């Protein structure tokens, strides 16, 4: 079986769920080879093995934390040259897309971003994208070089295929260019204790109709009652009611949870682009003509400021 190179993403030292999705998708195309950037502890290697990575490459160098993007791209390129995979899979996101972009240039390869599905074929991996604000599905293939594909989180359900990986350290001779965009400082955000927005099975989102930052406190209670994450429309993040990192839509995150509960969100096309892949959509809005009702599986026309607290109370009784 040919190799499929999967770039591993971690948060707080743990392998992120989208990486497990990539490993699951990779097994359709060949044998997953995982690439860890930074130190790989036993837990990381074991997790990657549990999801089918027969080989784990590790590149650990100070450049990876000291400089932006370029060292990561050079590490992926170097390992891709060693492994000669049928496909390079990276999680969609600002870092992932830029790493993929530079790998494509270095390998002179075709690149396809924001895949929602991938399948093998005689002419290489067939990559499905959700385009035109999610209203169309397009199937594409890379026709030149090693296909470089970025995949949206939640595009597959992680499935275990346990194996014991071989661990390989890889040395990368970084270029001078890799040491030009220097990270001079970082600030960390406090963890919310809620699931990651892009990974969450349930997302509770608020929009312009929320009216205040305090109303988002109420949404957090609802999210906690359901075990979900909190999101916001651009209108709400632009007002400063909730953090920009929680924005869903064209310029924010794309989510595809099992349940998307939209509160006070009208459902403009830019917002729908980020959430209409959700399996089930429930909406509360005071405007019966809000476009969100056209895509909602269940909608309630009414005042969210009375309905949401009542939902929290009802859930508390159960």
């Amino acid at each position: 079986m040919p190799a499929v190179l999967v770039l591993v993403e971690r948060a707080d030292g743990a392998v992120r769920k989208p990486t497990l999705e990539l490993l699951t998708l990779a097994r359709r195309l060949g044998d997953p080879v995982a690439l860890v950037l930074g130190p790989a502890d036993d837990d990381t290697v074991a997790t990657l093995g549990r999801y089918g990575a027969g080989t784990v490459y590790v590149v650990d160098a100070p450049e990876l934390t000291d400089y932006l993007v370029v060292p990561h791209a050079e590490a992926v390129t170097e390992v891709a040259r060693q492994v000669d995979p049928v496909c390079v899979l990276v999680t969609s996101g600002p870092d992932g897309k830029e790493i993929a972009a530079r790998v494509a240039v270095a390998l002179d390869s075709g690149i396809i971003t924001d895949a929602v599905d991938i399948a093998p074929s005689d002419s290489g991996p067939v990559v499905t994208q959700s385009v035109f604000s999610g209203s169309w599905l397009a199937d594409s293939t890379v026709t030149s070089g090693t296909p470089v594909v970025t995949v949206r989180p939640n595009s597959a359900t992680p499935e275990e295929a346990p194996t014991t990986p071989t661990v390989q350290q890889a040395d990368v001779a970084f270029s001078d260019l890799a040491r030009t965009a220097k990270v001079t400082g970082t600030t960390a955000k406090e963890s919310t204790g809620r699931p990651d927005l892009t990974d969450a099975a349930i997302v509770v989102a608020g929009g312009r109709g929320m009216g205040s930052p305090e109303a988002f406190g109420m949404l957090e209670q609802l999210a906690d009652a359901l075990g979900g994450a909190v999101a916001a429309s651009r209108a709400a993040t632009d007002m400063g009611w909730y953090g920009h990192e929680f924005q869903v839509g064209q310029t924010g995150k794309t989510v595809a949870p099992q349940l998307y509960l939209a509160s006070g969100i009208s459902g403009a096309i830019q917002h729908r682009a980020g959430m209409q892949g959700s399996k089930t959509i429930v909406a509360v809005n005071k405007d019966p003509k809000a476009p969100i009702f056209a895509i909602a599986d269940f909608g309630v026309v009414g005042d969210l400021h009375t309905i949401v607290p009542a939902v929290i109370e009802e859930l508390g009784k159960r």
Partner: protein
Amino acid sequence: MKIVVLVKYVPEPTASWRYAQDLTLDRAGVEGRLSELDEYAVEQALQLIEKGLDAEIVYLTMGPAKAVDGLRKALSMGGTSGVHVLDDALHGSDAMATSAVLAKALEHVGFDLVMTGMASTDAEMSVVPAMVAARLGVPQVTFAASIEVEGSLVKIRRDSDSGSQFVEASLPAVVSVTDQTGEARYPSFKGIMAGKKKPVETLTLADVGVEPAAVGAGAARSVTRSASERPPRAAGTVVVDEGEGAAQIVQYLAANKFV
């Protein structure tokens, strides 16, 4: 100093998009505009100058004849001049070819600082700034939520889910800016009139030194094999809250095993 802002003329996001026969986006049938996300780059370039940076601002676009409207929109907000890479051979170019043409055009025009939006609002790939930086061999300082230029250094803040990174690089560099940098200004009437008179240079592929065979649909490194309209989501149930709305939501969630 010369700031070159890369701008893209895109189909109006609220219009109904469709594929042309060759499975490229049908741009002819849809109204176009300067990509909203590029307006943030224009705004930040103008603000750098207003804060005292001594620089001229050149807008660079690549696209069909109508793309000049995107340059004019940017010029109506401010800036010095425009450059339009216009060539029939460009139709169907992928991001790899687009970045190659833009890099060649940038070398032709000259630059100290290249500024771009965080993505186009049509293809939404977010890969061209990194590709252009790679091809030019200059630092990329991308997804800036804020930007400063101090002497020959560019400094940005890059936000992510886990926090913020502060990044700096020496010029020349490529900087992409996010929609968190601040609303773009509306052109004034005076600005619109002035924008119409500002020089726009049109360049062909030959002018920038790119072989026509290296771009366009024929050179694309990926191809769309098929596309289908997603079946619209089946219309759900919408009820008007008459005191039972919350209970109905909880019943719905329970019936679908979310609680």
